[in-house]
């Protein structure tokens, strides 16, 4: 029997024992951590790098998101970093030499109230000023983009229009993480799995290394990149972050023929939908209200999300929920990320992407690598410094981020 089984496919990365010291340690082997490691090596020639992951690579939020990619945020600061990410997405398959199933099928953000319409139109104009492609569509035009969309005025929350970003879309999340991991590994980065950081050593205000479940590891620079667990890690360095960790749920249907040609999001009725290449409908909800690290949420959130989806897409009535799950998202008070330096020398922070970190993966990695390499914020990351919560220079993206980030 063993003779007829195929060989294991080639491993995409080594599984090395951690060395005792590295120039840069990245804590968190998700999409952002792997992208950061890759760009450290590729853009800055820093290859003495290890990524420490407490579980297996790409098993956290990068495995649990709904893969939506867009850059149509309101403020120029956000448009800058998300548009940088989108431009990187557009060349990423060639850059990594790995298929990512990146599909620019467009993103619709629906408006259901007069205030939604005003905000949507304002965002379209703001996007154009920031160099982001954006259009305002009336309901009929929105239905031309997405023929299964119900634009009946009889709906409880009728579709009054939509913003449309044609360059938005989706990608295969696992492939994204694996592509970055494979490329980083090939450049010499050590990807160390099952290695949980249990303490951070600081002497005279400088990070000297970490304690882990696989021993002590020294570091010249330490870069935290742990999304929902950022508060737990930062506390090891004596930092309190303006972050609350919440469950965020998503689900998929059984495999269906192609019916959903684009990505449709609605903040007002709390649902966002796309159809994966394989055929399942992928839907996300809003966060569960309470703080939670359990990677699960309440069914009532799913029920509300399904009710909204069914009203917008009556054709979904015959679909079945195949599975639901949750990730732990790191939510900030202004719905924008925290990326930059910290009060501790040589300790860097990338977190707070909340419900929308996947789309930022290459842009966050690009800017974070620059910040670590030069010990100063990348220009696109500078507005997202931790100290904005004392200066008051918030980047308020609740309108563009909201539930459907």
């Amino acid at each position: 029997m063993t003779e007829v089984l195929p060989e294991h496919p080639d491993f995409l990365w080594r599984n090395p024992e951690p060395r005792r010291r590295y120039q840069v340690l990245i804590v968190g082997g998700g999409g952002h951590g792997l992208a950061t490691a890759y760009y450290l090596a590729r853009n800055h020639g820093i290859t003495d790098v290890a990524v420490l992951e407490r579980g297996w690579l790409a098993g956290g939020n990068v495995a649990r998101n709904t893969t939506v990619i867009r850059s149509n945020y309101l403020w120029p600061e956000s448009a800058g970093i998300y548009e940088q990410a989108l431009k990187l997405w557009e060349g990423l398959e060639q850059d990594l030499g790995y298929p990512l199933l990146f599909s620019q099928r467009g993103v619709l953000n629906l408006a259901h109230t007069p205030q939604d319409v005003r905000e949507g139109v304002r965002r379209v104009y703001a996007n154009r000023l920031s160099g982001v492609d954006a259009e305002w569509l009336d309901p009929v035009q929105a239905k031309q983009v997405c023929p299964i969309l119900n634009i009946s005025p009889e709906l409880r929350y009728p579709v009054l229009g939509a913003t449309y970003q044609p360059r938005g879309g989706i990608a295969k999340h696992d492939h994204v993480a694996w592509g970055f991991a494979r490329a980083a590994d090939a450049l010499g980065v050590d990807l160390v799995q099952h290695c949980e950081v249990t303490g951070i050593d600081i002497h005279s205000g400088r990070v000297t290394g970490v304690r882990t479940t696989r021993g002590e590891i020294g570091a010249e620079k330490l870069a935290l990149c742990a999304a929902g667990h950022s508060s737990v890690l930062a506390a090891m360095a004596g930092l309190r972050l303006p972050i609350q960790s919440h469950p965020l749920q998503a689900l998929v249907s059984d495999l269906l023929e192609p019916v959903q040609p684009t990505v449709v999001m609605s903040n007002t009725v709390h649902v966002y939908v796309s159809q994966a290449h394989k055929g399942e409908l992928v839907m996300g909800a809003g966060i569960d209200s309470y703080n939670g690290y359990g990677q699960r949420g309440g069914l009532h959130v799913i029920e509300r999300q399904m009710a909204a989806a069914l009203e917008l897409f009556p054709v979904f009535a015959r679909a079945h929920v195949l599975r639901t799950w949750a990730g732990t998202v790191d939510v900030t008070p202004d719905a924008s990320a925290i990326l930059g330096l910290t009060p501790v020398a040589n300790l860097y922070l990338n977190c707070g992407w909340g419900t929308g970190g996947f789309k930022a993966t290459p842009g966050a990695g690009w800017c974070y690598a620059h910040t670590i390499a030069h010990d100063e914020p990348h220009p696109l990351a500078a507005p997202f410094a931790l100290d904005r919560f004392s200066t008051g220079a918030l980047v308020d993206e609740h309108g563009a981020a909201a539930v459907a980030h």
Partner: protein
Amino acid sequence: MLLIECPWCGPRDETEYHYGGQAHVPYPEEPAGLTDEEWGRYLFVRENPKGPFAERWCHTAGCRRWFNVVRDTLTNEILRISTGST
């Protein structure tokens, strides 16, 4: 869905409640005397533990009163429920 025991109404589904975040966060006694950092910490920074967490819930669909819960944020086990004004 969580099952939370209101101190006045008894055990009810989570959907009857509104979440209020961390408990025992007093308003600063002299807000005008705070530095920007201190004021920022009061406005924006709350505990975010993985484990027991003292938090506020309001029974919005019932008696509409606030109370305090200590809940484990990893397991969702409710460890203690008490009445209290903050």
